[in-house]
């Protein structure tokens, strides 16, 4: 075990005897006794060590000695390390060799109320500036796209289309079938009271094509693809890949963001159409299984109720949602910080941001469609 003994010799020398096994698993020795000795009125002028009975040692003795050295320096007491084993002497020299650079230590203090407001405002202004420049870059990229002069790799685009289109089908199938079933079930329970079971088909058909198909696929893609875009671009930022693109003369907006937005804008309406279809099938499953309607009746009733305009409106909305989700995801990724957890945070905020803009857009569409009588 750790043994420290202090011996005050007559000629003002404080002798510290170190003995026993100094290992981290036995804990650390306290320097209180040494310091109280140093604080006495008749302060010793020199500290010496006796390590004849010292056994194994590791960092724990070094921590103790470093603390003694600091205490000595503060009080101007001489330290005679000749009594230490050579290795320990060397390590102590190494630990003390580099002086702390002036101003290196971080000040860990609470900032005041006004200071925090100031910091937040400055942060907000910077964020707005960054957002505006991103929107500007994206506008330029879109103009380039329309002029057929945008630079991005076609293979990137097809890979992205595959990843956010085909590979999303299973989850879209599952969720939209479930939404169709739930809509049908809830309305069936209500409508049966009036003997109006047949109208379950109308309700499911119109709800899926007008709103639910687009909204559900948007929410799925926000979680699935928006987050992936943010994580991907965030990691590229951490590993300086984005810098490599910029210095090579590629616009990040054009080369990385544009194909992602394009892929999702192209795929979202298709996914939405598919979701509409699967949702109607889910409704039909309830209609046929629970309400004793025949498949033919259900399909005919759906075809009568759903107008082309409803479906087209839903598809248009889903294209807009796709653009919003992809942009929000990329934007969050590009603004990520430089650590692994910053990438995670970027993915999280990409999903949250996508949801918010999708819901906001949904509200705007509802108002517009109502005013326009669509």
């Amino acid at each position, binding site marked *: 075990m750790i043994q420290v003994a202090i011996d005050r010799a007559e000629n003002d020398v404080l002798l510290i005897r170190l003995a026993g096994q100094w290992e981290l698993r036995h804990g650390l020795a306290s320097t209180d006794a040494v310091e109280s000795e140093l604080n006495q009125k008749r302060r010793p002028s020199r500290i010496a060590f006796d390590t004849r009975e010292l056994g194994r040692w590791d960092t724990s003795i070094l*921590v103790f000695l470093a603390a003694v050295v600091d205490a000595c320096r503060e009080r101007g007491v001489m330290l005679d390390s000749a009594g230490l084993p050579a290795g320990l002497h*060397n390590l102590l020299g*190494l630990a003390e060799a*580099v002086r702390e650079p002036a101003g*290196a230590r971080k000040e860990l203090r609470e900032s005041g109320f006004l200071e925090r407001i100031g910091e937040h405002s400055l942060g907000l202004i910077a964020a707005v500036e960054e957002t505006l420049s991103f929107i500007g870059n994206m506008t330029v990229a879109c103009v380039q796209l329309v002029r057929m002069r945008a630079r991005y790799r076609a293979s990137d685009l097809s890979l992205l289309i595959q990843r956010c289109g085909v590979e999303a089908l299973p989850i879209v199938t599952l969720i939209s079938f479930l939404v169709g079933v739930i809509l049908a079930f809830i309305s069936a329970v209500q409508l049966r009271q009036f003997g109006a079971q047949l109208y379950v088909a109308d309700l499911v058909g119109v709800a899926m094509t007008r709103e639910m198909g687009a909204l559900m696929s948007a929410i799925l893609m926000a979680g699935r693809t928006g987050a992936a875009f943010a994580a991907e671009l965030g990691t590229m930022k951490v590993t300086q890949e984005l810098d490599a693109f910029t210095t090579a003369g590629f616009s990040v907006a054009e080369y990385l963001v544009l194909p992602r937005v394009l892929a999702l804008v192209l795929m979202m309406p298709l996914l939405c159409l598919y979701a509409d279809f699967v949702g109607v099938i889910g409704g039909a499953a309830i209609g046929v299984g629970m309400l004793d309607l025949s498949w033919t009746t259900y399909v005919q009733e759906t075809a009568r109720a759903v107008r082309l305009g409803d479906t087209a409106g839903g598809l248009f909305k889903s294209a807009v949602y796709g653009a919003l989700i992809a942009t929000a995801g990329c934007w969050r990724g590009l603004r990520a910080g430089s*650590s692994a957890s910053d990438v995670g945070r970027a993915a999280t905020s990409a999903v949250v941001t996508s949801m918010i803009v999708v819901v906001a857009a949904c509200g705007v569409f509802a108002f517009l469609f109502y005013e326009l009588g669509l």
Partner: protein
Amino acid sequence: MATAGGATPYISVRDLTMVYGSHVLMRDMTFSVNQGDVFVIMGASGSGKSTLLRHLIGLNEPAHGSIYYRAENFTSADSSQRERILRNVGILFQGGALWSAMTLSENVGLLLEEYTDLTPAQIRQVASLKLALVGLRGFEDYYPSEISGGMQKRAGLARAMALDPDILFFDEPSAGLDPISARRLDELILQLRDSLGITAVVVSHDLASIFAIGTNSIYLDVSSQAITASGPPAELLARTEDSTLRSFLTRGGNP
């Protein structure tokens, strides 16, 4: 194998064959690292130096052969035995591999928190000392992204030393460092060996560093997929007949 007389092997590698996918990197490697050695693994880029290091610390599994730590078979050990063996091992990864979400002090302190009974204040004290040893006094509360590459590397070394390991692995310690910092790191490795009796295994192709610190070495030859030379680097330079190795040790100069 050239072994210093009477020294005990800390790591023995027997008939190790490494593969990458279906491609064989090196065949039938046999060598041992002695206690107190600064053992250099040399070789051209792509010869499998870093892969060998990953095998030694159990990140990759050998296709054939085994690795012994003292008398214990590391290759056939189960995960708890491996964990116990690796407790005495410190690793400095090429880029430092610091945990980016933690401050330097937390990076060093995490291991202490997990494997010792020290109080948080004591852990911080130990972490500060370790950082002081690598010349980072005062940088305890910095995040890895806020300091330079060379400092990250030194902080990585402080973390590798957190639990006072018997053996330290260095993957390209001088990569990305300026010559003076690289030399300081070399000196630090030697000082740690002399003061604490640490054994060091260094993967390197930095000649200055190899000759300055290496007490023993092996050379991995790409074309023959085998160890073609072993021994102290300076001695190898003096006596080798192999033109590839000679050219490697003289930066392609006088064959």
